[in-house]
């Protein structure tokens, strides 16, 4: 995409965001595609040979897939909550962050449910979930929840994009392919920047944002109920709902920081995504790590202190360094304390440090999901009196790993592809900011001067 120099600021941004994919981009795309293909190959093997190719067996009937499912759904719900709050409170530094957050909502909500489909033994009977839907089952709640949420997420992303589509359509100095122009024209929905239309647009953005926040909170609670409503140690806990909500938001902020960092590097957006953004998000990360740590402590301390037999069996597994001890320490100590230290100490508070800590937070929260799912299933009420290793301890097979990594690659690939088509940063808002300075173009939600 080429732009002339009538409006250098926006041209600069459009050229940066929607420039032709370079060699490096193609290499990355190809690399990601290879990983996705490998994952698809593993999936085909799993479908043709049955779940025997996975490490799951009768005791640990859920494994990596469910951990991935709750991890990515958590990311998605969290992104919706974060973007909603940033919009509604008119947070001044939200602009470069908000589009990436909205994209994260959609892309995670597309990939997350794929993992639970992989966990289903008879994909050919998927329609039974609709035909024979039994409303008492938390899985059906999840089916309704995810589909509702996906629609809401798509609406909010699209509403946020309409102004940009109109801008890309109207400004003839931006030279784009015919097909591309036609697409932008179609997607701009005859938006003409009139005050009435703008008002409707922003009111709806506010409305959907406000709706999506409670919806996302309810949905991450439903997600936790898949575990919380069963008679299992470590799962059957009353704080699982809010615990999942905060764990999700915590991982969501970390994922947004990492995504911002990657796009900042890849598109050279240092001018727009500044240290301020990383520090503000870093402080959010710090607050959430304290909240999440508080819940974690509550959860484990109460079952450790009361020391009911079944719970104690689980804790013995978690504290045993030959089993889950290291994973427990990494996810519950390193993943909580490290961000607090890095953000709290001024001379550690740097862009790269915050990004690295966010990667660690993401990994630790993924491991956390794993040690929520697997050790509990290995701790049965009756002792596992079996000599088959896979029945006693779960260890994921290459099929599960390659499908898991394939899903992560798919997320990166989707982000890449989408960022070729739509600006990864809101153009209109960036332009407004340049023109009007600090004055906010978006109407205030509550105008107290009236």
């Amino acid at each position, binding site marked *: 995409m080429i732009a002339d120099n009538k409006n250098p600021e926006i041209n600069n941004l459009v050229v940066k965001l929607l420039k032709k994919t370079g060699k490096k981009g193609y290499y990355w795309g190809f690399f990601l595609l290879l990983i996705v293909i490998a994952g698809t190959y593993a999936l085909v093997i799993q479908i043709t040979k049955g*779940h025997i190719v996975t490490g799951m067996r*009768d005791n640990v009937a859920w494994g990596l897939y469910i951990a991935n499912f709750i991890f990515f759904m958590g990311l998605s719900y969290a992104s919706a909550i974060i973007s909603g709050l940033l919009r509604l409170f008119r947070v001044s530094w939200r602009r470069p962050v908000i589009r990436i957050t909205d994209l994260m909502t959609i892309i995670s909500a597309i990939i997350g449910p794929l993992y639970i489909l992989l966990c289903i*033994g008879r994909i050919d009977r998927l329609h039974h979930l609709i035909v024979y839907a039994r409303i008492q089952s938390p899985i059906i709640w999840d089916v309704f929840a995810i589909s509702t949420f996906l629609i809401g997420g798509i609406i909010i992303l699209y509403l946020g994009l309409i102004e940009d589509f109109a801008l890309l359509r109207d400004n003839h100095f931006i030279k784009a392919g015919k097909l591309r122009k036609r697409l932008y024209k179609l997607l701009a929905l005859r938006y003409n920047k009139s005050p009435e239309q703008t008002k409707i647009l922003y009111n709806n953005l506010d409305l959907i944002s406000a709706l999506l926040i409670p919806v996302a909170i309810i949905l991450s609670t439903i997600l936790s109920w898949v575990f919380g409503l069963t008679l299992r140690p470590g799962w059957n806990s009353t704080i699982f709902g809010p615990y999942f909500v905060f764990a999700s938001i915590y991982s969501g902020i970390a994922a947004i920081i990492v995504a911002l960092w990657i796009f900042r590097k890849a598109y050279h957006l240092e001018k727009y995504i500044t240290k301020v953004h990383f520090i503000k998000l870093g402080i959010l990360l710090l607050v959430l790590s304290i909240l999440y740590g508080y819940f974690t402590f509550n959860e484990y301390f109460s079952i450790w202190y009361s020391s009911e037999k079944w719970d104690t069996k689980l804790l013995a597994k978690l504290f045993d360094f030959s089993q889950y001890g290291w994973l427990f320490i990494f996810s519950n100590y390193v993943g909580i304390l490290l961000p607090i230290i890095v953000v709290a100490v001024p001379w550690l508070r740097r862009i790269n440090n915050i990004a690295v800590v966010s990667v660690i937070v993401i990994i630790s929260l993924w491991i956390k999901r794993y040690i929520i799912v697997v050790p509990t299933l290995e701790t049965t009420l009756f002792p596992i009196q079996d000599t088959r290793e896979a029945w006693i301890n779960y260890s994921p097979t290459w099929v599960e790993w390659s499908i898991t990594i394939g899903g992560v690659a798919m997320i990166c690939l989707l982000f890449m592809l989408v960022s070729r088509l739509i600006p990864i940063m809101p153009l209109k808002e960036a332009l407004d900011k340049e023109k009007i300075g600090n004055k906010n173009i978006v109407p205030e939600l509550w105008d107290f001067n009236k």
Partner: protein
Amino acid sequence: MKAFSNKKNKRRYSPRRKFLKSGLVLSAAFISGSTSISSCSGDNSTKSGKKTRLLTQDGNLVEVDESNIHESHKHCIKASLKEERKGIPGRKFVMVIDLAKCRNARKCIEKCQEAHNLPPDQEWMKVYLIKDSQHTEPYWFPKPCFHCDNPPCVKVCPVDATFKRKDGIVLIDNHRCIGCKFCLTGCPYSARIYNWKEPEIPEDIKNQQYSAETSVPAMIGTVSKCDFCPDMCRIGKVPHCVSACPNGAIYYGDLNEDAVSNGNEVVRFSELMSDKGGYRYAEELGTEPCVYYLPPKERIFPVKSGFKNLSEEEKARYKNIIK
């Protein structure tokens, strides 16, 4: 089914009749073996005149001419899917396991596997060696599906593939099951078994129509478990594990009739409970199991005798309990 509509041959019995009478019928049915009634078209010339009492699909006792009774195939469909979901009216099936009589002979497991075409590594009935605490004696603990009255597996099933019947039995429709495994994680008793691979069963059995009451044939990607053998109840017999037990440790019967049988004797359920201190395992979970246990008091066999005929693999299962 015409046989049942023939009023001359039909005689309804109240379920509250003396349990001894039904016990008699039950034991009579044990001898006659697996049977079915072909038809009763009104052609009197073939009638032998000898009558037999049988338990019908809807739980009534009927008198049928013996000439109309034929041996049936092992796994023939005995009830429609709709009837299978409803259950046998007026019944409430329970099992009582006398832990004092179990010596881990594993006959219940073997017979169950044979009857349900299970591979050797799928045990619907499992025998655990339980040692409750440091200073208590270990004991053998046979564990079928508990067929809970408040079943956590049924609660979580998203497609109603597993269901609770009026007669207390929890069954699985493996044509509806999507294999989400939620019931496996929901069941605290590890009673459920998932078919991780294509089941290795003979072609002719594989081609049969699935019956939830026999749980045959198994299907890849679906769940199976102990089914309390309602197909055996329909023909007036006790489940395979009950008849196979050499020590008569497992009793099975109807709570409404207050009668349970281990194949040799018919006893009152309530007397068994009060005389021998019957209890249910892990009562605090609130699942309301239909399987009761009698404590291992005054045991007939020492625990060690349970290791006698075990393979090395089977012995290794209990290595954590007995060093």
